C-alpha cells in the first residue's frame, strides 16, 4: 500500500529520473542520490527498531515481573530475564482474588457500551449528514459542545442522578453495572458521532439514488449499503469507546461504592495494591490479563483503524 517512489531500487531510480528530467540535470543527481542516501536509511531503520525496543521495554518488564517467582521479586532482582518462570502470580490472581468475576463485569460494560453507543451514533450521524431539517446545524454544534464538557465536572450531579434512577430501576442505579453503561454511552456518543459524520458524508449521493431506483427503502439503504460502507469508521470509533470504557477508573470508583461483586477490573487492581504488602507479581499479572482483551479487540479492528482515523479528519 505504502510503496513510495524512493523505495524503488537504485537500478530503477536513474531510469525514471532521467525520463522525468531534462538531460542536463540527469547527469549526476539521480546516480548520486541513492548512494548517498543508503547509509542514512539504514541508520534510520536501526533507530526505529531501537526506539521501539526502548518504548516496549516497560511492557517486557511487566510481563517479566508477572512471571517471576515471588522470591526473586522480593530480592529486587534486576536481571532482565528469569530462569524459572512461574505462573504462580497468575494463579493467585485468577483463583484467589476472583479476577474472573471482574473480567466478566468489565467485558459486559465495555461490550454493551460499544454496541449501543456505536448504533446510536451511527443513526445520529446519518440524520445529521444525509437528511436536511431545521435546527440541524444547532444540533451539530451541540454535539461538539457535549464533547467538551470535562467528566470531572459532572461526577457529582451524575452521582445524584444515578441514585434517583436507582430508586426507580435498581439495575441502572448506583452499585450496578447499568449505571456505568449509561454514563459511558453518553460520553462515547458525541465523539462517535463526530468521527462517523465524515464517513457517512463521504458516501456519494448517487449511491443512494441508485439504491432508491432499485427499490430500496431508506431503512434498507442505511442498513444494507451505508453501514458496510462506513465500517472502517465504525471500527475506529468502537475501539475508542472500548478503550475509554475499559480503562475507566473515576466512574467505577464513584458509582460502584459498596457492591464489591459489581466492581470492574481497574478497581480490582487496587485491591492487589496494598500499601503494606505490595504483591507486585500479582499486580503485574493482573495488568497483563487486563490488557489481553484490549489487544484482541485491537487486532480485530486495527486493519480499519488507520484509514478510519484518516476518514475522521477528512469529514
Amino acid at each position, binding site marked *: 500500500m505504502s510503496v513510495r517512489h524512493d523505495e524503488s531500487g537504485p537500478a530503477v531510480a536513474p531510469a525514471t529520473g532521467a525520463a522525468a528530467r531534462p538531460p542536463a540535470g540527469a547527469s549526476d543527481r539521480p546516480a548520486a542520490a541513492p548512494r548517498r542516501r543508503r547509509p542514512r536509511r539504514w541508520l534510520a531503520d536501526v533507530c526505529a527498531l531501537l526506539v521501539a525496543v526502548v518504548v516496549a521495554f516497560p511492557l517486557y518488564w*511487566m510481563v517479566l515481573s508477572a512471571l517471576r517467582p515471588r522470591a526473586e521479586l522480593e530480592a529486587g532482582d534486576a536481571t532482565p530475564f528469569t530462569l524459572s518462570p512461574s505462573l504462580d502470580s497468575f494463579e493467585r490472581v485468577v483463583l484467589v482474588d476472583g479476577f474472573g468475576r471482574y473480567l466478566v463485569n468489565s467485558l459486559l460494560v465495555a461490550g454493551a457500551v460499544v454496541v449501543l453507543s456505536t448504533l446510536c*451514533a451511527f*443513526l445520529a450521524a446519518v440524520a445529521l449528514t444525509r437528511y436536511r*431539517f431545521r435546527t440541524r446545524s444547532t444540533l451539530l454544534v451541540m454535539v461538539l459542545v*457535549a464533547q467538551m464538557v470535562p467528566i470531572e465536572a459532572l461526577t457529582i450531579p451524575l452521582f445524584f442522578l444515578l441514585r434517583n434512577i436507582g430508586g426507580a430501576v435498581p439495575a441502572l442505579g448506583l452499585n450496578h453495572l447499568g449505571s456505568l453503561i449509561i454514563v459511558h454511552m453518553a460520553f462515547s456518543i*458525541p465523539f462517535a458521532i463526530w468521527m462517523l459524520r465524515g464517513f457517512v458524508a463521504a458516501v456519494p449521493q448517487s449511491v443512494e439514488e441508485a439504491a432508491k431506483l432499485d427499490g430500496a427503502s431508506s431503512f434498507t439503504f442505511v442498513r444494507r449499503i451505508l453501514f458496510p460502507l462506513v465500517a472502517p469508521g465504525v471500527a475506529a470509533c468502537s475501539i475508542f469507546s472500548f478503550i475509554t470504557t475499559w480503562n475507566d477508573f473515576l466512574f467505577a470508583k*464513584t458509582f460502584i461504592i459498596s457492591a464489591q461483586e459489581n466492581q470492574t477490573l481497574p478497581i480490582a487492581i487496587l485491591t492487589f495494591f496494598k500499601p503494606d504488602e505490595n504483591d507486585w507479581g500479582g499486580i503485574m499479572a493482573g495488568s497483563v490479563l487486563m490488557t489481553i482483551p484490549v489487544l484482541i479487540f485491537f487486532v480485530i479492528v486495527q486493519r480499519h483503524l488507520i484509514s478510519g482515523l484518516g476518514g475522521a479528519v477528512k469529514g
Partner: protein
Amino acid sequence: MSTTAVPREGTRRTGDWARRAPLLPALIFTIVVTQLPFLVTIWYSLRSWNLLRPGSGQFSGLDNYVAVLTDTQFLGAAGNTILITASCVLVSMLLGIGLALLLDRKFFGRGLARTLLITPFLIVPVATALLWKTTMFDPVFGLVGFALSPFGLGDVDWVSSYPVASVVTALVWQWTPFMMLLVLAGLQSQGRDVVEAGQVDGAGPRQMFLFVTLPHLRRYIELGVLLGSIYVVGTFDTIYMMTQGGPGTASANLPFTIYQRAFLGFDIGQSAAMGVIVVIGTMIVATLALRLIFRTFMATEEKLS
C-alpha cells in the same frame, strides 16, 4: 446547500420529524446524561452545601466561586493541569511525528516495531501508572534508578522528588502511540503524485518534509492535539495511582482536587463551583482550538471548490 426536492407544505412538519428520528436516541441520551447534569452543577455551585453539615444547602450566591478562586490548592491544581496537559501533549506529539516518519517506510521488522510502539496505548492507565511507579521509578527496585546508577542518580526517589515530571513521563509513554497512529494515518493518506511532483521539482528530504508533508499533516496534528488535550485534562487514574496528588498537593490536578473535595471532603457546593470553572476554561481553550481547526477546514474546502 442543495435543496433537491422542495417538500409539500402539508407534509413538511412530519417530514422534518421523520428525518430527525434517527437522531433522537443519541440526542436524548446525551442531553439527559451530560447537559442536564451540567445545569445541575451550576445550581449546586450556588449553594453552600456540605454533606457533613446537616441542614446545609441554602442559596449562597457566588460565595463558592470566591472561596475557590482564592484557594491556593485550587490554583495550584489548575497550574498543574495546564502544565501536565501542555507538556504531555507537546512532547508526545513531537515523539509521535518522529516515530510515524520512521515507521512510514518499509524495512525489516516494521510490523513488529509498529505493534510494539502501539501497545502502550492499549495498556489500562491504572496498570501503566503502577508499572511506572513500581518497576520503573521505585528508588530500591526501579529500573530507572538501576539504569542511572552509573551517573550517581541510583537512589533518587523519582515519584516523590519530581512528582509532576514522573506523571508526565507515564502519560507521554501512554499517549505517544496515539499521536503516532494519527500522524501515520496522515502520512499514508498523502497522495503519491504530490510526493513525486516534489521530487521532480528537485526538493530534498528536508524541503519535502517542511513544505509538502508538514502542511499536509497539519489537520491530523491539530486533531491529535485537540483530542489529546480533552483526554489528558481529565487524567485522574494516573495521578490517583502514582502520587495521590502528593506529596502534599504538589501534583494534584483539577479532576483529582474536585474528586477529593466532593467525595472525601463532601463539600458539594465548592466542588461544583470548581467544575463550572473547569468547564468555562475548557470551553474557552477548545473554542479557540476549534476555530483554528475550522479555519483550516474552510480554507481547504474553498481550495477544492
